[in-house]
């Protein structure tokens, strides 16, 4: 048994344990909490024709449908409809699409946009 006066607050072994534990925890944080890769592309559908557009660089792209031209804007790693020949303008109200799985469509003009990413996220969450 250790004599009472001989109990140091921390021995070298104690410090080693703490340092190793801290390193292990840091490695776990780094390994498990990596941010998911940012979405890089948008899949589009325009009057039956489909393709893929990069989210970068910032620009405005025209997509033609049966009613006319839908104009979409790419900015700040996101995309949105800014002009549409349709009546309802649901596509404009969809706003910015930024995350994997985000989706907006103009049904009358048969134009749709989907953000593509490794992490598709959720369509909806219920509690």
């Amino acid at each position, binding site marked *: *048994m*250790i*004599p*009472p006066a001989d*109990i*140091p*607050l*921390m*021995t*070298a*072994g*104690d410090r*080693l*344990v*703490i340092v190793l*534990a*801290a390193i*292990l*925890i840091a490695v*776990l*944080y780094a390994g*498990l*909490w990596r941010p998911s890769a940012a979405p890089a592309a948008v899949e589009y559908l325009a009057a039956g024709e489909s393709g893929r557009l990069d989210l970068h660089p910032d620009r405005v792209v025209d997509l033609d449908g049966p009613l006319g031209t839908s104009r979409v804007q790419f900015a700040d790693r996101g995309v949105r409809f800014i002009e549409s020949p349709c009546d309802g303008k649901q596509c404009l109200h969809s706003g910015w699409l930024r995350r994997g799985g985000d989706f907006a469509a103009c049904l009358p003009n048969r134009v749709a946009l989907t953000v593509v990413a490794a992490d598709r996220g959720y369509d909806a969450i219920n509690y």
Partner: protein
Amino acid sequence: MPDAAATLQLKPTRDDYRIAWLTALAVSLHLIEAALPSPLPGIKPGLANIITVAALLHYGFAVAAWISLLRVVAGGLLLGTLFSPTFILSLGGACASVLILCLADRISRRRWFGPVGYSVLAALAHMAAQTGVAYILFIPHPGLLYLLPVLLSAALIFGIVNGIIARYMLLRLSKP
């Protein structure tokens, strides 16, 4: 020839009484802790660990293992969680911490590690095993593993604090 009844008589020593008291103390801490609200499921100070570590350094590994496992069973009986998932998690954690304390005791022979080292090792082993058991038996979802670093950080902090408390306890225990 001594008669059978006389040979079976057990004389509790001073240490036996101390061990019983320490187990009772560990059970009390276990119960108090069960009543404390926790910010995150699984994060607890693990105060009963103080008793295990102090007993390990004062009386040796066997006593510490007894206290730790008796504490889980007695705590389960008193809380009404015996053989429930909570109990299984608790038992898994206790077994892992007892195992790592055994290993550390073999390596250190009570020279390399002090109370803080033992306490941190036990706390980390307890938390890691508990998360592992929870993952394998109850929630096999990778989301649970995201919690691991947070839980282990808490275990490290509480392990250090409990080790320091165990040291004070040892200083008091060693006084005649």
